[in-house]
């Protein structure tokens, strides 16, 4: 018996000894299989051509590996055809010289050789496959230069937590006369809109150095004293030294039907409540979300370097590999821009399919040196799923799984109709952050300022332990992990670098509201965290709180943070109460408002993540909250002038808008005479 057959049969018998009874049949079967192995002949010309092509690439690689070399008739070689190089290669083979040794020469620039248009997505084929109608229109290529980082030179960098990076969804809902979801406004999103004095007094020698500041502040409604501790997020990084790592970047782009809705149409839910957004800027009027997304993506391309790798996956109700993960320097970027701008929306939304295919692209890269490369998926969608799984847990599981493999996620919401609950859940994943796009030019500006930071998580799993006989943490503001606060522990999943201006750091603060019965004594604060290279670090510090009377702010940073945290609490409480009034049974019992003169601005309950979409509700502020907001406005204005920060005006405008809002719903405390008969 053939030795190979014998081995195969032995292996089979080990698995199933009964098969031995059929040895003759199995032998015949094996012989039949092997004898029918097709004879496939490879074209030798192809073999040679591919070999030449590879050697050319090999040569280019040598060039990029050795930047400084002596010049050796390079200008002549640079213009030589592939055939001539091939001759040179075979001569090298014959003379037993290695390719790089031939090319040891003078100083050369880093080069990637010829670029290719590696776009694979065929819209017409997709149309045939899914019998969908779409029209292909060309748009002029955008060519926007990167301005180099928005004037951050010479400044130290700060740190800011990951997660939600704005409260645009909250503000846009109000501007468009809709009652936002309570989760649309978060302290971390709001904090990232502001710069804070972090109270750093000592030179910072590490990637992360916390600083602590204390405040006693009277609740503007109840007048009771509240106690706060601010954690300043400082870093030793200097803006001029900051250089992001090379990127393995996979963009997963939603091309589903909902992306075809116009930016000047307001879509909130699946109940047909679509209204025109009259407040929208003319710049994006009439543009589809698809258009804004593709323009934003093209703007992002300007921030990539030749030694970054870029891959693109599209998804509707299935996924499409549009561009394999290849070096930017080897990609025809002009052609790529045009392909992206040519994209049109189609079909349903299956985010999981898109993410699965996008994540699979990293398989081809294999293990990367994390000191050299950053792996990131940028996921652009308007997140209105209508096919496949609508359980965000599946998507979250995939994000988390990716993060375990050092592939982090930036989630970019296109349009105001983004489900901020889901976004919050996604943002709790290690290394993840979330941005919303309201207009392509606004997003381009944001990229110019922040792209490098967006893709560079610096600190993971920051934990702060507070030990004190007299103080406990009541609530954490400015971290998406705030609900994990257990009285002693604060947890922050990720810290990203952030811009600083005039010594103040963008979003550079986390605020702790403290519970105490005796507001003095020692607070022992210990931090632990992981750096990018997996090292655990931390520090322990004692903060001594002396006995004080009346209001006290250790610096303006904590004062601003307290103001904004209260604003968030007031807004969340109002939304929760306003929505609960809608659900009250008839006849309505008297509600107990969460914000009142006795309790002041209480911490709202943990905002649960709700199902995907909720019914849109017209904007309404009941009489009680109009009064509370008026009271709060006085406090806001006084803090505004004390802090001298004009950017606070954006939220003062929101307050004014809400105070002037017509009360659309009956307030049980103020019954209306709604008799319309004559």
């Amino acid at each position, binding site marked *: 018996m053939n030795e190979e057959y014998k081995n*195969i049969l032995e*292996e*089979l018998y080990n*698995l*199933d000894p009964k*098969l031995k009874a*059929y040895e003759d*049949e*199995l032998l015949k*079967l*094996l012989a*039949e*299989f*092997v004898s*029918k*192995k*097709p*004879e*496939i002949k*490879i*074209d030798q010309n*192809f*073999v040679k051509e*591919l*070999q030449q*092509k*590879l*050697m050319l*690439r*090999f*040569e280019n690689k*040598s060039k990029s*590996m050795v930047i400084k070399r002596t010049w050796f008739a390079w200008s002549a070689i640079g213009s030589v055809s592939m055939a001539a190089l091939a001759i040179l*290669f075979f001569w*090298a*083979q014959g003379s*037993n010289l*290695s*390719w*790089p*040794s031939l090319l040891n020469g003078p100083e050369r620039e880093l080069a990637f050789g010829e670029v290719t248009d590696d776009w*694979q997505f*065929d819209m017409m*084929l*997709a149309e045939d*496959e899914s019998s969908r109608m779409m029209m292909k229109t060309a748009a002029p290529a955008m060519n926007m230069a990167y301005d180099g980082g928005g004037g951050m030179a010479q400044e130290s960098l700060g740190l800011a937590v990951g997660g939600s990076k704005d409260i645009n969804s909250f503000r846009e809902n109000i501007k468009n006369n809709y009652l936002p979801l309570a989760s649309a406004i978060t302290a971390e999103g709001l904090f990232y809109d502001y710069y804070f004095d972090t109270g750093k007094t000592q030179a910072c020698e590490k990637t992360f150095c916390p600083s602590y500041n204390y405040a006693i502040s009277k609740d503007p409604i109840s007048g009771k004293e509240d106690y706060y501790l601010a954690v300043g997020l400082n870093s030793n990084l200097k803006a001029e030294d900051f250089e992001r790592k090379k990127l393995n970047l996979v963009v997963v782009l939603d091309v589903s039907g909902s992306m075809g809705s116009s930016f000047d149409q307001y879509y909130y839910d699946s109940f047909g409540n679509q209204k025109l957004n009259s407040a929208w800027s003319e710049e994006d009027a009439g543009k589809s979300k698809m258009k804004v997304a593709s323009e934003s993506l093209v703007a992002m391309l300007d921030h990539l370097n030749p030694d970054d790798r870029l891959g693109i996956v599209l998804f509707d109700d*299935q*996924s*499409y*590999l549009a561009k*394999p993960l290849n*070096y930017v320097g080897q990609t025809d970027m002009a052609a790529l821009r045009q392909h992206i701008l040519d994209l049109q929306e189609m079909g349903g939304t299956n985010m999981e399919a898109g993410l699965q*295919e996008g994540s*699979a692209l990293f*398989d*081809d*890269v*294999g*293990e*990367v040196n994390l000191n050299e490369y950053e792996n990131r998926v940028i996921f652009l969608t308007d997140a209105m799923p209508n096919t496949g799984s609508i359980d965000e847990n599946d998507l979250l599981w995939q994000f988390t799984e990716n993060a375990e493999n050092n592939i982090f996620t930036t989630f970019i919401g296109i349009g105001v109709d983004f489900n901020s609950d889901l976004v919050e859940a996604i943002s709790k994943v290690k290394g993840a952050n979330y941005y919303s796009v309201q207009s392509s030019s606004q997003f381009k500006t944001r990229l110019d300022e922040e792209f490098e930071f967006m893709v560079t998580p610096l600190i993971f799993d920051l934990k702060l332990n507070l030990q004190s006989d007299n103080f406990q943490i009541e609530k954490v503001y400015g971290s998406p992990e705030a609900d994990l606060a257990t009285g002693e522990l604060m947890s922050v999943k990720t810290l990203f670098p952030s811009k600083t201006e005039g010594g103040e750091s963008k979003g550079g603060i986390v605020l702790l509201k403290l519970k105490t019965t005796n507001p003095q004594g020692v607070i022992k604060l210990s931090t632990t965290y992981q750096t990018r290279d997996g090292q655990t670090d931390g520090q322990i510090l004692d903060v001594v709180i002396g006995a004080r009377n009346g209001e006290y702010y250790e610096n303006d940073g904590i004062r601003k943070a307290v103001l904004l945290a209260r604003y968030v609490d007031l807004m969340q409480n109002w939304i929760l109460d306003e929505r609960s009034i809608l659900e009250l049974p008839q006849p309505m019992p008297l509600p107990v408002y969460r914000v009142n003169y006795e309790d002041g601005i209480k911490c709202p309950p943990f905002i649960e993540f709700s199902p995907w979409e909720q019914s849109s509700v017209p904007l309404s502020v009941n009489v009680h909250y109009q009064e509370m907001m008026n009271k709060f406005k006085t406090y806001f204005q006084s803090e505004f002038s004390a802090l001298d920060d004009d950017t606070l005006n954006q939220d003062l405008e929101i307050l004014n808008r809400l105070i002037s809002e017509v009360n659309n719903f009956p307030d049980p405390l103020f019954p209306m005479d709604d008799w319309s008969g004559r």
Partner: protein
Amino acid sequence: MQTDQELISLSLKGDSLAFSSLYNSYVEKIYRFVFYKTMHKETAEDLTSQIFIKVYEKLKTFDQSQAFQPWLYQIARNTVIDFYRARHEHANIEDFWHLSGADEQAKQEQQWDLGRVKEYLQKLSAEQREIVLLRLWEGLSYQEIATIMHKSEASCKMSFSRALTKIKSEVLLSILLLLFTNLK
């Protein structure tokens, strides 16, 4: 003769001849592997080119404590899957065997004279078929197949065993049917 590991080390130091030797050792095997899955000369050539370009680009990420051949086949397999995905042939991204009616396929099958082997292969799942072909036509070990397919060695063995048992049962059944028909 130098081992794969030695050739890789030399390639990473810039020795183009070493890389060329690696290429020469495997180009035909990889082409054949791709051809089985696509049945189309130009496509197989195109994918083979892509595979070796990927190998060249990723060689520095290759874990030299592992065997080279399964890593190479892994890249080849992923490239073929990507090819079918890009063409939206999701139902059969593993190989062409369920794609029927293609002229090229019919022509190739005729040339190959696969006989009953074609029927056997079509009765198997895509995964079983791939394991059987890699084992019997490509002569790869179960360990190598397991690495390529991201499965355990035991599960590959089991899959192979089930495939042969399934074919064997079909063969015995056909013989019985034949005997029964003759008896009648």
